[in-house]
């Protein structure tokens, strides 16, 4: 089955991974800007990273027939440095007309601090000003519930936000209901240890239905599995769910959400 991985960090994966994804049916990926494993010191460091996302990765993916899209921001971890964050936010518009840029992301919270919240709100302003969709990272482990509620407070508190153009990612059992009930898209991240397994993601699909629900691997430089979506497809088939349901979650829903961006010019496989 053709599928789309709506959240995967291919800058930290090998070319062999692109080949494996293509063999597994992956036809498109979207790559949010994220933490590199170390704090970058300058806005120019981010400019180079954004060139890598918009130019290098798109070309690398194309060699395997995979369409590459991306999202730009300064991530929640480095957002603790408000001065640097403001320099990066001021530079992002240079890239927003690039064909592969879908919007602002993955913005969010990490340790749920005041500085992270200030930078989140300033990213929101950027997205509103340039009419960009938003992809949101929610915190890990014990910080997730509190951070997700804080993020929803900030989004819900601004009437200019079009909820149908916002994806709140990394939802789990204790955060999915609030995200969907408030009218946002929700993403489930399939990780080997933290976040969510394919089995638990299948449970959430059964409990909440497939509307506005996406699944991703968030494959990166840490413990993660870039082929986690085929694992979810396998789990849903094993339970006896229909191909239509599976396709909706792993293919139709990402296409519908990404189409909120004028830069999403998807080429369907014929």
């Amino acid at each position, binding site marked *: 089955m053709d599928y789309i991985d709506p959240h995967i960090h291919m800058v930290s994966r090998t070319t062999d991974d692109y080949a494996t994804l293509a063999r597994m049916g992956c036809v498109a990926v979207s790559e949010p800007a994220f933490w590199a494993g170390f704090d970058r010191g300058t806005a120019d460091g981010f400019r180079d990273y954004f060139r890598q996302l918009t130019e290098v990765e798109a070309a690398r993916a194309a060699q395997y027939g995979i369409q590459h899209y991306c999202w730009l921001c300064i991530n929640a971890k480095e957002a603790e440095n408000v001065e640097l964050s403001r320099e990066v936010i001021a530079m992002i518009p240079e890239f927003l007309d690039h064909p592969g840029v879908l919007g602002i992301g993955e913005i969010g919270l990490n340790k*749920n601090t*005041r500085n992270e*919240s*200030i930078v989140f*709100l300033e990213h929101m302003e950027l997205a509103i000003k340039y009419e960009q969709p938003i992809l949101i990272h929610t915190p890990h*482990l*014990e*910080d*997730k*519930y*509190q951070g997700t*509620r*804080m993020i929803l*407070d*900030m989004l819900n*508190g601004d009437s200019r936000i079009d909820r149908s153009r916002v994806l709140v990612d990394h939802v*789990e*059992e*204790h955060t999915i*209901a609030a995200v969907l009930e408030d009218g946002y898209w929700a993403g489930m991240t399939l990780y080997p240890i933290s976040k969510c397994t394919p089995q*638990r993601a*299948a*449970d959430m*699909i*059964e*409990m*909440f*239905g*497939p509307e506005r629900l996406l699944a991703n691997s968030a494959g990166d430089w840490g413990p993660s599995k870039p082929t986690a979506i085929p694992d979810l497809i396998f789990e849903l088939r*094993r*339970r*006896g*769910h229909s191909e239509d*349901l599976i396709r909706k979650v792993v293919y139709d829903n990402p296409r519908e959400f990404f189409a909120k961006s004028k830069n999403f010019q998807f080429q369907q496989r014929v």
Partner: protein
Amino acid sequence: MLLHKVVDPFHSTLLSVVSLLPPCPTNNVMPSPADATQLLDRHFLEVRARLLEVAATLDRLDRAEGEVTRDARREQIATAISILADAKPGRAERLQRLFSRDYKASWRADMQV
């Protein structure tokens, strides 16, 4: 062993906090096509293995030098086990909430954001 924990004041507090959580929804808009017996057949050995891992880890803690019975994480584990053992739905969500920091609706005013 768990009965000892239930009368432990700190553990009792944890249990009270979890019991105060909002009721979990019993959403099931798309039930699994597999029935309960089929699911138990499929998952029994996997659950058995995971429970044994937990049991062996607790035994390992008991055998080790030092004392963690008052460690908040050990108390969380004990509370989590009691959640697994009860018959109410939404166990996964309740476990998630047990392992989560509290949310205060007044955070924006508190942080002046």
